């Protein structure tokens, strides 16, 4: 187990292994996405209250969950790079920010497009929407800070601290629909109770959530591989790779 992690620290080993895993991971993502989309858009019946508009849920909920999940991954990576100064964790933290920002933006836009027909308005300043918007600003803040600082060590520390301060926002987003009762509907799926949605509608949602998770793993690995190539550009194995390509 430890030798595996040790080997993973070697850029070349990481590059080779991820190159072999990626096609399969990508294939699994594509298959799950297609199944989830077909099930969610075609097979699942319309909602008795919301008609077909609820089908936005199949992309809105996974995007929103990923916006939180990616932030927690980024925060975990930030802790590791602050405490142990591991290179790989810094790469993960750096590449989580733009991905998380795009999931957050997707969650906000799909939410607005769902809100208009159901609530009569694209936007309300309720707790869930406002805290999710704050999350977008946190991501953008981390990206901006990273771009502004030249020195890699200062960059890792400053963006890590900002990331960790922003973690406060995550439980606020998660519990906002329970703490404040506003337009945004309560959680459909909760650990502590039976889901308030019919299985024929629930399954495609779960498939889409898994697909989005895999998608995140795929694009994060792709970005990390680019980072490895850029950092190791002067080594013999990267040159050889580039010459073959």
């Amino acid at each position, binding site marked *: 187990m430890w030798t595996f992690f040790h080997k993973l620290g070697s850029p070349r080993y990481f590059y080779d292994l991820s190159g072999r895993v990626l096609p399969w991971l990508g294939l699994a993502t594509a298959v799950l996405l297609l199944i989830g989309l077909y099930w969610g*858009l*075609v097979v699942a019946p*319309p909602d008795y209250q919301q*008609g*077909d*508009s609820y*089908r*936005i849920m199949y*992309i*809105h909920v996974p*995007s929103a969950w990923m916006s939180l999940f990616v932030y927690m991954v980024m925060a975990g990576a930030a802790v590791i790079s602050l405490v142990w100064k591991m290179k790989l964790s810094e790469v993960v933290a750096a590449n989580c920010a*733009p*991905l998380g920002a*795009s*999931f957050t*933006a*997707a969650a906000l*836009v*799909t939410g607005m*497009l*769902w809100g*208009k*027909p159901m609530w009569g308005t694209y936007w309300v300043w309720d707790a869930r929407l406002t805290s999710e918007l704050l999350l977008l600003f946190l991501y953008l803040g981390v990206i901006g800070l990273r771009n502004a600082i030249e020195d890699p060590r200062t960059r890792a520390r400053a963006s890590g601290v900002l990331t960790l301060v922003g973690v406060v926002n995550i439980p606020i987003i998660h519990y906002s629909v329970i703490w404040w009762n506003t337009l945004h509907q309560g959680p459909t799926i909760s650990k502590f109770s039976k889901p308030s949605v019919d299985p024929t509608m629930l399954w495609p949602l779960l498939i889409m959530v898994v697909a989005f998770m895999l*998608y995140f793993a*795929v*694009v994060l690995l*792709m*970005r990390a*591989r*680019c980072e490895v*190539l*850029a950092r190791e*550009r002067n080594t013999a194995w*990267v*040159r050889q*790779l*580039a*010459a073959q*390509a």
Partner: protein
Amino acid sequence: MQDFFHMGGYAFFVWSAYTVVLVVLTANFISPMRRRRRLLREISQQSSRKIINDAETQT
């Protein structure tokens, strides 16, 4: 089929939302692919230039 595109009257909202997500997912997928290709091209040009330079300094 027409029902499918009509989405019970919510076609604009449903299809806009799906388009936005599709664009976001595709963009995030394509950008590291392009970066990788660009990096590999840069590195191979760099190292071939270095070989030429080395050859010139030797002669």
